């Protein structure tokens, strides 16, 4: 359990650094979505299922949709 959690935390840290370094905005958003999903797993590990469900629906789902739509809007104006 401890080893698994540490690996997950390490993944979280790596993906958050990756968000910062990736140049492509869509890529950063996708990495952030992966980050949210991993966070969901961590919370499930910590026995907080309510939070895991909400984060999966809100954090990974809705937030990503909003980000992608914003990106679409921004690209659309440039065209």
């Amino acid at each position, binding site marked *: 359990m401890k080893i698994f959690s540490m690996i997950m935390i390490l993944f979280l840290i790596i993906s958050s650094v990756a968000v*910062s370094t990736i140049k492509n905005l869509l890529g950063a958003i996708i990495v*952030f979505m992966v980050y949210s999903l991993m966070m969901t797993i961590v919370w499930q590990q910590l026995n907080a299922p309510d939070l895991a469900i909400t984060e999966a629906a809100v954090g990974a789902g809705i*937030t990503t949709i909003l980000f992608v739509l914003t990106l679409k809007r921004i690209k659309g104006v440039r065209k």
Partner: protein
Amino acid sequence: MEGLMNNYYETGSIILFGIGFAILLLHNNLIKKIIGMNIMDTAVFLFFIAKGYVSGKDAPIIIGAHKGVQGYINPVPSALMLTGIVVAVSTTAFALALTVRIYEGYGSIELDEIIKMRSD
């Protein structure tokens, strides 16, 4: 150092918090800034949830018979952070809407370029 190894979840969440803080404060791109804000928020949530965990106990949902006080983890952080997640998504939506309008107004989402532009 040993304290950090004992509290590995908290340590991880603090590192995430720092990274989120740096992204929020020092990136120029607004979308990245908003992602940084989200990372910062989720890091605090992780910190809270880690404080509520008790090893070897169940999730705070009573299925079947009640297992007594010692059978479940602390439910308070989960309840608080449920509120926190919704607050975070509201703020994100607001910030993204502002970003869209900024782009329509200034034609850029890089903060330093926007600040350089004369507003009128």
